[in-house]
């Protein structure tokens, strides 16, 4: 036992690998939130009147709300006046298209993000968002040939205002919830994707989010529209430097899926989780939702979440198109003092709609990990089917796993199934591995990856490899 404890100490001191900061000049506005700040953000971004209106409506609505408290979370109070709502690396884009600050390039190189198009072989187009601003989008030209739009949302507002105006807030209205209202008021940047009718996007589209500046919040906004018979696979990755204060991240992702179209959205979330004492870390309070508008459309959310001090989000699907199919595959890992209250919502409105939920929670240290899910079958959803499976894996005896499945079935022809298991990595399993020459650290990684493989296998290849490593790393030192 003594030996295990020293092992725990040793690896607990291991540092978060992405905790560096980048020394670039940042254009950062005064802390605090007011109507003037909302106007200032809009002005800095040279936005049209309708968007300023949208922001102001959202802001005024937000003022009437209070931060919700129903999550299974112990959340530090957030002082919304102590946050700066806009931070941009100063002049990130020089006048010549494609040239960016070399310091920024280094940052993204360290993160392994292929910003240069020399990475063409990797077959991934990247939009990189640093603090509040989209830094560079690669492969734009190649995508444009197919009529695909992949750019920052600010740029989309300038160049494709009709599309943005039509869809922005159409899936997550600003009245949706407290954090959605806040995001709608102050969102700074994010990615915009439009796949035209009948087009299969030939490469993975990827956004990398990074918070860098101190005392800033990140409020990015992603909007994906996949038109009839189109297909896209979209990846999202996240990191942040180590800060001893909490950093707020309140994003919105909206996805519109039209007839027979298919969207795969994958996330590997590795925001800074705070130190081993629970100090610092990102508060990840995100609203993600997809609307399966068209008949026989498909949407899948796949997420591997190992980061953030607090994760509070429910990537959801509204299945209104008849015969539409939605999937949610999730691995959520919490260690030390991390907390997660996450899951999904599947709202069945159309006939013969199907949804699948596979959730794998892994708790270690003193962390708390909750799955919360809603399956709603409306009276109109004849023949709807849902299958949910929620597993929890515990490492050690000081962590907690919780499951809150809600079901609201209003149609007699619907079939809704729910399965749940809780298991624990036992001393015997670890010793069996040890006796075969496998160290405890490696054994945990092996067992956890085995447990999570159903979800990991859903990720695109390169992401899957990264996710596997991440699972091992984030649980180091969690057994003792």
């Amino acid at each position, binding site marked *: *036992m003594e*030996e*295990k404890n020293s092992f725990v100490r040793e690896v607990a001191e291991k540092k978060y690998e992405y905790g560096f900061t980048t020394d670039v000049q940042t254009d950062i506005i005064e802390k605090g939130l007011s109507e003037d700040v909302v106007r200032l953000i809009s002005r800095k971004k040279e936005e049209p009147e309708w968007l300023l209106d949208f922001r102001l409506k959202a802001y005024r609505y937000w003022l009437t709300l209070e931060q919700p408290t129903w999550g299974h979370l112990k959340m530090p109070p957030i002082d919304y006046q102590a946050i700066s709502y806009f931070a941009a690396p100063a002049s990130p884009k020089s006048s010549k298209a494609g040239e960016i600050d070399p310091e920024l390039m280094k940052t993204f190189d360290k993160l392994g993000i292929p910003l240069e198009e020399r990475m063409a072989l990797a077959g991934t187009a990247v939009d990189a968002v640093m603090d509040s601003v989209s830094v560079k989008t690669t492969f734009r030209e190649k995508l444009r040939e197919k009529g695909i739009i992949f750019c920052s949302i600010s740029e989309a507002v300038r160049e494709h205002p009709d599309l943005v105006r039509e869809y922005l807030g159409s899936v997550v209205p600003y009245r949706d919830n407290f954090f959605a209202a806040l995001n709608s008021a102050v969102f700074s940047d994010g990615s915009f994707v439009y796949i035209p009718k009948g087009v299969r996007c030939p490469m993975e589209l990827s956004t990398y989010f990074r918070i860098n500046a101190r005392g800033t919040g990140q409020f990015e906004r992603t909007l994906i529209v996949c038109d009839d018979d189109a297909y896209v696979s979209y990846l999202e990755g996240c990191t942040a430097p180590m800060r001893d204060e909490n950093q707020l991240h309140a994003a919105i992702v909206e996805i519109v899926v039209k007839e027979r179209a298919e969207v795969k959205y994958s996330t590997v979330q590795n925001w800074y989780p705070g130190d081993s004492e629970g100090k610092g870390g990102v508060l990840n309070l995100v609203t993600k939702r997809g609307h399966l508008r068209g008949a026989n459309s498909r949407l899948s959310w796949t997420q591997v979440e190992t980061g953030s001090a607090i994760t509070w989000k429910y990537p959801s699907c509204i299945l209104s198109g008849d015969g539409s199919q939605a999937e949610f595959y999730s691995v959520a890992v919490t260690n030390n003092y991390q907390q997660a209250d996450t899951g999904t919502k599947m709202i069945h409105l159309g006939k013969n709609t199907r949804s699948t939920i596979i959730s794998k929670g892994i708790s270690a240290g003193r962390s708390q990990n909750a799955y919360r899910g809603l399956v709603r079958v409306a009276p109109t959803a004849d023949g709807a089917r849902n299958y949910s499976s929620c597993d929890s894996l515990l490492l050690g005896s000081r962590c907690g796993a919780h499951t809150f499945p809600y079901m609201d079935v209003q149609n007699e022809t619907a079939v809704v199934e729910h399965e749940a298991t809780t*298991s624990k990595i*036992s*001393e*015997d*399993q670890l*010793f*069996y*591995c*040890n*006796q*075969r*020459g*496998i*160290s405890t650290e*490696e054994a945990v990684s*092996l*067992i956890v990856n*085995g*447990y999570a*493989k159903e979800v990991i296998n859903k990720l695109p290849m390169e992401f899957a490899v990264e996710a596997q490593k991440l699972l091992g790393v984030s649980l180091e030192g969690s057994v003792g």
Partner: protein
Amino acid sequence: MLEVKNLHASTGGKEILKGVNLTVRDGEIHAVMGLNGAGKSTLSNVIVGHPAFEVTQGSITWNGKDLLALKPEERAHEGIFLSFQQPIEIPGVSMVNFMRAALNAKRKYQGLDPMPAGDFLKLMREKRAIVELDSKLASRSVNEGFSGGEKKRNEIFQMAMLEPKLAILDETDSGLDVDALRIVAEGFNKLRTAETSAIVITHYQRLLDYLKPDVVHVLIDGRIVRTGGPELAAEIESRGFDWIIKGIKD
């Protein structure tokens, strides 16, 4: 060579081993027999470093190295293998991934690169044949859904993969039918080299008929009370342990 000297070990505050002395030279097979609760499994667990057992006195050296100072995985890398009495199930981890992790950990310890995937799979096939282990079992999760006999066969398969210098078979014969026992025992014999030594823990003569031990020990109440040749095992088979126990008391 394994040298156990005056070994005392306890678990949960209860002393189980009360001064065990045992020397196993390279190439020798030692049988350890005794009633349930005598400390046979404790002895094997202590040799491989199970954290539930605490050594309170005595020493174990392996080729001159202080074994007790090594972590369990290091003892494995040094060539010590335990065939578990009750092999553990590890859901979600395939036998292939498990064995690859084990083999490559050992290679790393020896300063070698990981084995290329093609070579590894070929090795798996070869070794599987020795214990007639079904290829379907090898693609399943570690021991999950294996019958009792399959689990024991799987232990010997792992031994075949890792090629230990000292194998400890902890009641490998329990729960095996006659055919399975023969496959396991013959598999073990095929894997033996002139240097391989073994400690075979058993209640019965039948496994020893195959393995032909050089030395037979009787462990009673945490001590080795009698040591002899193969004839001792045969005598226990016909007379039981009572006469030995009586001999100690007298």
